[in-house]
């Protein structure tokens, strides 16, 4: 039978370890970029129209998920009409155009998002990935490579950028 003091010490250690583990996980979660399909909520300072457009875009994504592509695009366009400066609406349309293989249009929407979001790293990563895929689709491999490398600079673990570079014949080193 262990002395009473020993049991307390072990419990404290376990508690501390748990806190440290949870803290580490939280820190990792905060550091790690969001998965591409996870929405980036609008800033607290965003105009009400932009916030409303964000929610519409989320509705549109749900329509897209159940195969209602035309309805989803109409919802994204509605969001854009409501808030032309919404990064969410512009990005969603960029992605939709990418799916439709309209790469020029996808790039236009991507450029708009880039102008609207400034230096936000998560948005920059997503725009760079969109550009990479659009340039790749359009056959502009040099720009596609450049864009995928941009993604990796912002998110060294990006599997999508690696896959893209792999398709282009460049296998980046695994960090």
């Amino acid at each position, binding site marked *: 039978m262990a002395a009473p003091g020993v049991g307390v010490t072990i419990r404290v250690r376990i508690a501390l370890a748990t806190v440290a583990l949870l803290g580490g996980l939280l820190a990792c979660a905060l550091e790690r970029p969001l998965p591409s399909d996870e929405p980036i909520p609008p800033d607290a300072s965003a105009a009400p129209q932009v916030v*409303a457009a964000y929610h519409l875009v989320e509705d549109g994504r749900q329509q897209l998920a159940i195969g209602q592509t035309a*309805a989803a*695009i109409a919802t994204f366009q509605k969001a854009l*009409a409501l808030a032309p*400066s919404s990064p969410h609406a512009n990005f969603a349309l960029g992605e939709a155009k990418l799916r439709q293989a309209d790469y020029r249009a996808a*790039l236009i929407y991507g450029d*708009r998002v880039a102008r609207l979001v400034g230096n936000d790293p998560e948005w920059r990563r997503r725009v760079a990935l969109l550009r990479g895929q659009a340039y790749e689709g359009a056959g502009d491999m040099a720009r596609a490579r450049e864009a995928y490398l941009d993604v990796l600079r912002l998110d060294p673990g990006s599997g999508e950028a690696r896959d893209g570079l792999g398709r282009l014949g460049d296998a980046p080193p695994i960090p």
Partner: protein
Amino acid sequence: MASSRRPRRRRRGRWAVWLVLAVGAGYLGSLYLTVTSRFEGPRWKVPSTVYAEPVTIYPGMDLAAHQIHDRLLRLGYGPVAGGPTRPGEFRWTDDRLDLYLQDFVYPDHRVQGFPVAADLRNHRVERLVRSDDGVSIPSVDLEPEVIAGLFDESWEGRRLVRLADVPPALVDAIVSIEDVRFYNHWGIDPRAIARALWTDLKEREFAQGGSTLTQQLVKNFYLTQERTLYRKATEALMALMLEARYSKGEILEAYLNEIYLGQRGDMGVYGVGEASILYFGKDVERLTPAESALLAGMIRSPRAYNPQTDPDRARARRDRVIRRMVELGKIGAANADAALTDPVPTRPKARTAVRAPYVADVVREQLERLYSRDVLTSEGLRIFTSLDVEKQRAAEEALRAGLAGLERRLPKGPEPLQGGVIVMQPQTGHILALIGGRDYGETQFNRMTQARRQPGSLFKPIAYLAALRKDAETGAPRYTPVSVVEDVPVTVMANGQPWTPQNYDKVYHGPVTLRTALEYSFNAAAVGVAQAIGVERIIETARALGLTTPLPPVPSLVLGTSEVIPLELAAAYAVLANFGARTEPLMIKAVMDRDGQVLARKEIAVDQVVSPEEAYLITSLLRGVVERGTGRGVRALGFDRPVAGKTGTTSDFRDAWFVGYTPETLALVWVGYDHNQSLHLTGAQAALPIWTDVMRRVTAGEPITDFTPPPGIVLRRIDPASGLLSNSRCPDAITEAFLAGTEPTGSCAGGPPRFLRWLRQVWG
């Protein structure tokens, strides 16, 4: 003799009988053909309905700025004292809006009306909640307003319903009050006719009808409204034929879709489907017994028993219908009691709708490329457009007031002053407002989409864009915003004649920066730039921006002497506002058939025709026009949002223009006479004030945004006089935009350093 005459007479009699029988048979045959051919073919010509954009309500929205109260009244919503309990009702207090949405079928989904509550603070929505389940919602759409109908002769609003979709209570109510023996007679009801004849004889006029539902259908469907015995006899014959040929169900369904049930402004309301939406804000299948009885009671006189104008009388009539249903065993006592205590909807008549006839013409013209005129006017298509009703109304008011004000200043001309407005959203290409002339009733000619007018100086930014664009061969632009151009007399050959363009102020200003030349719209400088870069390059740029009209390669092109279509000009400026991306001007967003199937849908079409950086440079120059140049009246009139714009005036002051844009809204205004008389006013004098009024109204409640320079732009502080980098010696610096790598490297050399200037000021 007598015996020989008799058979001849008999033969003649027989012939006469045969003749009468033949004529009678022919007549009956033709009646039968009339009855069956119409009944079996397309029964109704259902006009197409043109809708505006639905308005979205969301937390943070300023309901007053977006005129939501007016919109609700136009949509037929009625204020109620208590909380709204049925579709189409609302209650608005200082801190709360309770609203019961009406049913509506959108291109992508169907909305069954539900109650919504918005917490308000200073007219601004703080929170939106579905009142039925208390769940917060991010936004909600008000149904789109009807802005026009496409019809041939008269606008008969009609939503066709199937008998299976009509609640039994409505059928029972109608049969009970209009034709109690409907299921038993053959089309006519002798007892009802006898009763009606007796009343008519007493009154010595045709007051009582005694008509069965079948006869009413025949009268409305095949015959005129005249009251003669001949017409009555024909009606009876046709009713018999109809009953002999078709089932009671088919006749009843036709009746339910045919009956007239009131007016919605200039649109007649026909059939229970349309009436259900008008009076109750919901689809017919959701009508309650009380509502069914109210509607049935209105058939006799939609005007007299209209709950919107005389609720007491409508209620009395409804109660009579319910009591009759009780007598006939069509409704149980408990249900009847509940129906009798149900309040009559007290919604007032919908406020007069905003009509956009010029828009309707554009819609019709565009759709006639896809559908025949007959289809458009008879198949009940539902056409969804980008038009914003409040922006349309605001633009109409601004144009009307502006033109009236100008006419007070101008000598009375032989024809009324005309004007037109386009409001667009550059990022989507959506046309938000379109006014093709001052009064559609007077002339239907659309001056924004059908006219070709000289743009005057509105063409200059296109030429300057060509000058600022990178050369395909050298990869560098010929000019930057600070390039010095000569505003001096220049003589060029035009139509084989020497021509020396003059400036508006009759003065040549010598060497000026390209920015100054555009901000003050110097003609001689513009011609000089055009000569230097070549007219072909300008035409190429104009084509990239979407101008399709002929542009002869003449030196005067840069001064806007070639006619353009105003809508194309607005779209060209939208490219500049949209960082070089051209969005096709878009009015029709979707077309649905009457069964709710989407027939066509138009997506935003976007293409990068000019680089974002080059487009931004022109926007930057056009901002200077408004801050310092010919468009500074915009600021003087109090419009203080970030804005870029350009004035335009054509030779002899025949056309006055102003086009300008914020990052999210563009408007173009034209003022002139149809027959090209001189206005004696410039664009800044005639069009700019109207434009400012339009923009002030249409941007109310919108967020203020600025033009963000794209990545390939560098900003430098520049001495505007020399076009060189500013330093302490050049105090009046402005921020100038350059394509990266084209910014000046030298500094200005003018004046003493700032410290010395300060010393001089201090010591006098």
